[in-house]
């Protein structure tokens, strides 16, 4: 009897505890959300004070190179259509600023990831109650609780560029894209070839890292590097920050502005599909782009190729685009790359 009572008391205590914790968690979330919205208001007021009353803030929600490149490409045309406002583009991090500044944008403001999220939250919460001069440069900002368009990536053949033009910049067409200001004869870029002993027109720049998609195995890259060297190519890896070059290759940091000059001198790039791919789409070099078949990050409804293909986006017709699965058929990819060279 005593044992049964003890069991019941224990069960009761557990229930109370569980209930208490669940209530507390909810309130804590609510409190954190409220503080976050306060922070958003502070960011908004700070920006407004800096840029004036007629400023409108175009917010990049994510530090991804490709997203910032595409939005910055269309912002000059968009700003021209709204001459009465001062268009201020906000980006996350210095890298984002460098990408945005490839285009003729009047004002670019660097915000932290948290400030950006807070600004979006404030806008989402209060935007229908007062005129907040904010536009989100994405169809489904991750910081926005009410976003619903994420699953349309790839739906009915909807590609990355079309979704931006349809939803973020309605009324603009690919013809409205601004030309990026890449450097042409920068001696510092040319010097990279001498410094790392790279051959002109016979160098492969490998880009093996991407933020949002699955990567190839280390073994794949090792085999590929060896095969490229056997064919007489110099091989280097694009690195920035803490990234390590692939074994047996030189780690080269190429500034965004110098990318065109570097790649058109090098001759070849082999890339895992990433933001950099959008930037190099129009370059006069051999572009081999790898797309994972496995959509682990649940990008929309179609495949990553459907959504991000340079050909589907009409950004490049001469790119060699290959789908791969890390779990099967890497060898076939490797053979197709060597055939394409």
């Amino acid at each position, binding site marked *: 009897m005593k044992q049964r009572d003890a069991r019941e008391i224990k069960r009761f205590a557990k229930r109370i505890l569980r209930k208490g914790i669940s209530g507390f968690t*909810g*309130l804590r*979330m*609510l409190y*954190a*959300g*409220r503080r976050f*919205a*306060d922070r958003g*208001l502070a960011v*908004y*007021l700070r920006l*407004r004070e800096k840029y004036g*009353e007629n400023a409108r803030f175009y917010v990049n929600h994510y530090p991804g190179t490709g997203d910032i490149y595409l939005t910055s490409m269309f912002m000059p045309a968009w700003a021209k259509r709204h001459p009465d406002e001062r268009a201020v583009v906000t980006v996350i991090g210095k890298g984002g600023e460098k990408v945005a500044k490839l285009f003729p944008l009047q004002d670019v403001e660097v915000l932290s990831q948290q400030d950006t999220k807070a600004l979006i*939250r*404030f*806008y*989402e*919460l*209060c*935007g*229908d*109650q*007062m005129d*907040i001069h904010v536009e989100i440069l994405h*169809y489904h900002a991750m910081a*926005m*609780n*009410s*976003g*619903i*368009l*994420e*699953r*349309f990536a790839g*739906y*009915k*053949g*909807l590609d990355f560029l*079309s*979704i931006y033009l*349809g*939803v973020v910049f*309605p009324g603009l067409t690919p013809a409205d894209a601004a030309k990026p200001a890449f450097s042409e004869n920068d001696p510092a870029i040319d010097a990279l070839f001498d410094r790392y002993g790279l051959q002109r027109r016979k160098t492969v720049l490998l880009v093996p890292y991407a933020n949002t998609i699955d990567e190839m195995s280390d073994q794949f890259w090792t085999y590929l590097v060896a095969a490229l060297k056997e064919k007489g190519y110099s091989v280097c890896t694009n690195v920035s920050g803490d990234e390590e070059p692939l074994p047996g290759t030189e780690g080269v940091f190429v500034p965004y502005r110098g990318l065109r000059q570097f790649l058109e001198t090098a001759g070849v790039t082999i890339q895992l599909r990433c933001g950099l791919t959008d930037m190099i789409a129009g370059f006069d070099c051999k572009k081999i782009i790898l797309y994972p078949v496995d959509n682990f990050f649940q990008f929309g*409804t179609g495949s990553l190729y459907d959504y991000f293909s340079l050909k589907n986006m009409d950004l490049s017709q001469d790119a060699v685009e290959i789908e791969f699965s890390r779990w099967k058929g890497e060898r076939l990819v490797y053979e197709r790359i060597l055939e394409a060279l």
Partner: protein
Amino acid sequence: MDVRAEAAKVLKERKRQAVIGWRVWRRLQKAMKAAGGFDRERDVIVVAVPEDPDGEALALLHMEHFAKTYGGRVFFCSSNPLASKLLPVFFKDAVCLAASAEEIEALECLAQLVKFCGRLRFASVSHPFGRIGERMIGVKGITEDEVFAIGACSLWKYERPVLPGYSGENSDIRDYLKKAKRILKEKTDEAA
């Protein structure tokens, strides 16, 4: 009023509404518990947004689709006094939860501030504020019903809904079904 003061006032009011929204949510949780409990893994709560009556009709038309996709029960929360009578016509296994328009507005406010339930779906392509589903309509021939079903309701495999039959005498239900038929035609028409 200067912007600083106006923005602070608006934000304060929205935060107050979010707290009310939290109380509404607790009340709905209790109501769901009384109706047999809410399974966070399989059940879904569909909230009809008072500002978007067409969204409510579309949600009712997709009721069966909700149950099929999520695999559990469907709770339908609406401020429409007719909702409890309409629901069995569209899908008899759904559970109706009543709430006032103000309560639903407070719930929307809470959802904008924090993500508190992964199984809550607001039945609208444009509400709560921040949704830009209407911009997707017409892009690559995407219809409003597709934006509604795939986007707002996370019904991943789109199915065009079918209008249910009704042989009863209630004229309000008959009128609503006529309206639903018109909405269904408009929102699934690619040209629209």
